[in-house]
């Protein structure tokens, strides 16, 4: 095998640097303090368990100004057992709160869709409060090409 030329070494180096750039945003996975605080406020300090709620968003959003958002919570939606509220949190936005959806047992199913803004690539979190006082959460990562909070 022949030795690598200077040009080849440089090319390898820049590929590695580019790879590092791509990996970085993915490793920055931890929730922001803003998101954590808001979640705590919503649950009153209670822990939210994963599951029961399904959050559907595109993996890649080209335009952060209008990103489709849809969620479903497993619940019989009866007078005794229903979903009270669902909060959507985007920790990577300048302000993490997106919206709070209030359901009633008349809703039939705990399911709703809307469109939201995302400033950059981040995790979006949905937390549901059930009528029995328990909290359930789901999160999904959305990669954003053009941020939606430009000024």
């Amino acid at each position: 095998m022949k030795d690598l030329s200077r040009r080849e070494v440089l090319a390898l180096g820049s590929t590695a640097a580019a790879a590092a750039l791509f990996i970085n945003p993915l490793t920055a996975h931890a929730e922001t303090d803003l998101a954590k605080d808001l979640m705590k406020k919503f649950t009153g300090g209670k822990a939210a368990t994963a599951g029961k709620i399904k959050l559907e968003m595109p993996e890649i959003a080209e335009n952060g100004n209008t990103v489709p958002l849809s969620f479903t919570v497993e619940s019989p939606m009866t007078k005794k057992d229903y979903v009270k509220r669902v909060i959507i949190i985007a920790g990577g936005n300048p302000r993490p709160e997106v919206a709070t959806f209030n359901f009633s047992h008349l809703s039939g199913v705990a399911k709703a869709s809307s469109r939201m803004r995302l400033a950059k690539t981040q995790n979006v979190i949905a937390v549901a409060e059930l009528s029995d006082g328990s909290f359930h959460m789901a999160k999904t990562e959305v990669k954003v090409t053009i941020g939606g909070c430009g000024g």
Partner: protein
Amino acid sequence: MAKSKPRVKAPKKASKGDIVTIKTLISHIMETGLRKNKKTGKIIPRRIINKFQAKFEGTEIFSVDLDPAISANPFFQFSMKAEKSGEFEFIWTDDNGEVYSKKSKLTVS
């Protein structure tokens, strides 16, 4: 800004026990209060729809507390279990105090 025009797509008829899907949209700028006027450098004041309510025969079935991260022209899709005939009322509340509303009738057989 042009006057906000609410649009609603709700079924007119349903069978008892059906889960009906309702879609609503209102034209609105949803100014976040974070943007700056490029010429003057001043912050453009926040102006969003901050509350959406869906009522059926006067009872709230679904509502949303909106924050500035909801896109311009807020769109919502949600459901209701059809138990009896009646009238939907959809209400949007603007930061400036204006209220927009729209009604739609549902016949349950």
